[in-house]
């Protein structure tokens, strides 16, 4: 029974009926319980049609109104009621809603609460051709958990070795499986012709859409486990490029998996055997690919380029990172375009050159590569700049103010020195302008 006789009795006393007979209280208690249930069943219908799973006071009131009963006023609130327990000592505990005392004067004096935000909508793809894209709006796939859970279960009662069925069935035809095996085998081969053929096959084949995710995965794992092997990395990059350039494939959903691998190839501390110089080209290649991706998908994913640039800039500005990383970061930023060079590289060049000057004595080759990369960045800046400036010591001095003396010297020797100086001067002016604004 929800209501004890004592409750009924105390309620009756509170409304001025002092002594109720025992039989009456029992009957009352039963009836009240039944009526309550009726109302709740009715209210649940309103809850259900409001697409909610929590019953509210509003639902109860609507149910009462449907039954032609006066609703209970004063309990409706946007927030769920909090019940507090009070121990009476005699009977069971009593629960009550904690009503806060509000001082009307104070409440009236208070500033009006802000208007709640109005209902708004956002749109996103829950699925693209049946595949759920891994974007922020979609929940993280719980599959690994489920699998882990299933495995644990398996080990728990190994006797009946239940075969777990994966939530998503991915049917890959036998042909495709063979094709994938053949391709990966060829990619591992030592013959460069075989490798090139495999890559060109990926780049041109129309029927391998289902394998995209596997190739992306292949690139990721290869990069992760072969940081010391420049040849393998080059092949992996070639595969990445092939997948991207194949006009029949739809790679957009997989870009977020591809970019980290590429960035690794750009800014990794150590690529290839120590001492070898093959990794510079690899970094250039990877940087170029990143910039291509940014160009291709920048329109759709506005945050893509800024995120990549931020990662690279962080690598560039961190003096604890080795010079090889700095080189990659510079190259990567350069590849992202003139405006990135102007906004992110140029203001930091002078400080960086100071650091580089020190390093120049210790590790000449690396430092020189970095310096060359910076010069390339400046050339990039001057690429679309038309007006040339006459070479003079005045100009050289001006340039040194921006990029440091050493670099200014190098640039001065450059055949395009005039253009670069003009471009730098213009860029500095523009930056100043925008700063003032």
């Amino acid at each position, binding site marked *: 029974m929800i209501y004890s006789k004592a409750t009924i009795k105390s309620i009756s006393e509170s409304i001025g009926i002092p002594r109720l007979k025992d039989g009456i209280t029992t009957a009352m208690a039963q009836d009240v319980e039944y009526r309550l249930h009726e109302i709740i069943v009715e209210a649940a219908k309103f809850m259900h*049609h409001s*697409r909610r799973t929590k019953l509210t006071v509003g639902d109860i009131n609507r149910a009462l109104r449907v039954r032609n009963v006066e609703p209970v006023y004063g309990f409706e609130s946007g927030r769920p009621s909090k019940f507090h327990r009070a121990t009476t000592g005699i009977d069971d505990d009593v629960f009550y809603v904690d009503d806060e005392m509000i001082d009307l004067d104070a409440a009236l004096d208070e500033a009006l609460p802000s208007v709640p935000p109005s209902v708004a909508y956002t749109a996103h793809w*829950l*699925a693209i051709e049946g595949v759920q894209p891994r974007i922020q709006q979609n929940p993280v796939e719980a599959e690994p958990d489920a699998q882990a859970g299933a495995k644990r279960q398996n080990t728990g009662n190994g006797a009946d070795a239940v075969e777990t069925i994966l939530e998503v069935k991915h049917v890959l035809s036998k042909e495709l499986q063979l094709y994938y095996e053949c391709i990966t085998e060829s990619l591992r081969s030592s013959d460069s012709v075989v490798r090139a053929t495999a890559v060109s096959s990926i780049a041109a084949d129309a029927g391998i859409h289902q394998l995209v995710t596997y190739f992306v995965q292949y690139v990721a794992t290869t990069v992760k486990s072969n940081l010391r092997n420049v040849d393998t990395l080059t092949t992996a990059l070639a595969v990445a490029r092939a997948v991207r350039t194949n006009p029949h494939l739809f790679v957009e959903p997989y870009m977020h998996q591809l970019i980290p691998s590429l960035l690794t190839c750009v800014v990794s501390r150590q690529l290839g055997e120590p001492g070898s110089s093959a990794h510079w080209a690899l970094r250039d290649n990877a940087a170029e690919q990143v910039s291509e991706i940014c160009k291709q998908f920048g329109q759709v994913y506005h945050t893509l380029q800024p995120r990549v640039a931020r990662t690279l800039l962080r690598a560039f500005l961190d003096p604890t990172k080795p010079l090889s990383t700095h080189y990659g970061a510079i190259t990567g930023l350069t590849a992202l375009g003139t405006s990135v060079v102007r906004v992110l590289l140029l203001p930091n060049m002078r400080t960086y050159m100071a650091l580089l000057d020190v390093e120049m004595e210790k590790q000449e080759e690396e430092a020189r590569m970095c310096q060359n990369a910076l010069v390339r960045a400046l050339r990039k800046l001057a690429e679309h700049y038309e007006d040339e400036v006459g070479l003079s010591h005045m100009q050289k001095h001006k340039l040194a103010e921006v990029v440091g003396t050493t670099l200014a010297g190098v640039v001065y020797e450059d055949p395009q020195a005039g253009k670069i100086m003009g471009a730098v001067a213009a860029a500095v002016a523009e930056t100043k302008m925008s700063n003032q604004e």
Partner: protein
Amino acid sequence: MSGRNTDAFDDASVAGSNGAANGGPGGIGNSGNGNRRQASQKQVEKIVLQYLKTKGYRNAEKALREDAIMDGAETTIGDLASVFPASEMGSDANVPEWVLFYSEAEQGNPDAYSQSYRELRRWTDSSLDVYRHELYAVSFPIFVHAYLDLHMRGLHEKAAEFMEQYSRDHVVHHGKDIETLTTLKTKAHVEENALAKLYRENKYGIRMTRVGFELLLSFLQDHHFTLLMRTVNQYLNIRTIDGAVQIASESEADVGITGHTQNQLDHFNSQDIALGSAPLDPFVRDEVERTLQSEAGRHIKDSTTEEASALLDTFARAKQDSTTNALSARDAIPMPPPRGVEIEQQIANLKALRKRVALSPAALPSVCMYTLHNTDNTMNCATVSEDLSLMAGGFSESYVKIWSLKREPLRGFQSNFVPNSVNSEEDMEAVREKTGEDSRKLIGHSGPVFGVDISFDSKYLLSCSEDKTARLWSLDTMTNVVCYRGHNYPIWDVSFAPQGFYFATASHDRTARLWSCDHIYALRIFAGHLSDVNCVRFHPNAKYVVTGSCDKTVRLWDVQRGSCVRVFTGHTGSVDTVAISPDGRIMASAGEDQTVNVWDLGSGRRMESLTGHTGSVYSLAFSQEGTLLLSGSADETVRAWDIKRSSTASDHPIIAQRQSEQDQSKAADPDAMDVDSDGKSAGNNAGSSEKDKADAASNGDSKKRDAAGIWKSKRVAESDALLKTWRTKSTPVYNVTMTKRNLAIAIGAFTL
């Protein structure tokens, strides 16, 4: 079912209610009128005698007995009363007499119900697997009526005890009903409770095999369980199926209360229905053809002319298709003369048809999800227009909000405009508001808005509310145009006909109504559901509407005649949403029981029962080909189901489907075991959990609810037909729609 309908108890109940007027007691011949009267005289004597005996009036009894013998009857009443030949009980005609006279022995014993029900359960548990499901199914109404009988006789404590002891046998399938019945405390409650009344006043339909039925009868007779026998007679409508069919699950045997006997249901479901597409108005057809031809015939060849000629091709094909398939103009419902919008609509449809993505289980659709934020649980429903230009939502705070999905300003008319001064397009533009936001509130209702629908041309919006009205809003002027009154209780759902003009509402008052936009009163009232009508949808040819109800049935109504033409039974909870395939042959329904049932409209049979959802299903949508079904649910998922494959099954789709399901689940489904152990932990005794296991192994439905009767089981066996589940980020999916190009739209409100 191919079986012969014997409907023994239908006849039996008639006989019982007429006393014994039309059937003599077992041993007495009853040919001829005089004899019959004599026989009925004897009946009366017997009843009196029985009464005297139980009351202990021995002298009076003796006197009567002597009197009877003096009358010179062939058989002494005493003999009759003491030994009734059990062998003769086989014939149905004898049942009522037997029930009439021998119940008295049990009448005085308050434990009789409990004892006999326990015996019945024990016997059922030990019966052959083949018959067990139907016997379980039949034991539920017996259980309910035994409980109600106990209350009616004032044995309230016994009733509560009885409920407590045996309710766990049934919570799996009938949790909601049990919950309600448990709260009954007094005779008065039983007399006025809606559910109890439903059980008392209607017959409970059960489907059984002939052998199963005979087994049950002979069991009840052999043990002289007259109380149960009487219940079976009075409150059950048992339908036997002949032939080598098997009932493989409890829900298959359980027809439930429909307000009709199964004979009537059969009659309903065998009525002819015309499911062809609506015929195209000849004027519209010619006009479309002419427009396309003129566009194709232009001298300058460019992409539009090519497209137009391609469209012309498609149109010719579509036309041919529809002529073979369409209703005759006589069958179709009358429509107002075309206004020009129809022509544009037709052309747009053709274009969409050409751009349609072919979907199949291997090629799933793209789903665009619209998530609403800051709703604070106040949004009740949502929909999008067919051309995806508008989205509308109904709110608890009595307003409808519309958004332009193209982010264009929504401009209504200025409040001071004079309709007479508007003569041209330019004038229209002039009286429009100069500025507007891309969302707008439509204010007018005085209660929560439970349903919204946008017309096919995106010019009108309908909303329905707790305030008992439905309102028509013009999306040109952004104002309320008509307020439709007629329902006496909150309206749950509203739906436009596919070609506009007509619409239907579903209400708490247990009716659905058909309206036309130009009349303020309902044209048809569809009455017949035994509880709230939750949802209503039009058949694509607008000749029928489908309604889903709290009474666990789905019904198909003929719009012209206003009568029910199909009743679909099989859900175990209220039905909240229905959808009909674009070709008009298949219907899907789903609701609180988390199961999606797919029905063949023509035969009225269930094709498939799809399980997998772990929350109420809010919305369903077929792909344009009708091969895929999408469902949106409270469990924050959108799921895609494969539909066509069971239609290849034999002429007994249900049986074939069931058997295949059974086979699969026999391969030790881990989920089944899980749910089973849940059941045990909730306090099932060994016997009933064994029964659960049997159920769970053969039937996905039974896994839906846990022992407490609340739908919260975490792991549900997923049907094979489930192709894909897309989860959302804590966003229950209120609506799923398929556009004409097979793009899926899902709408949900983000809830914390």
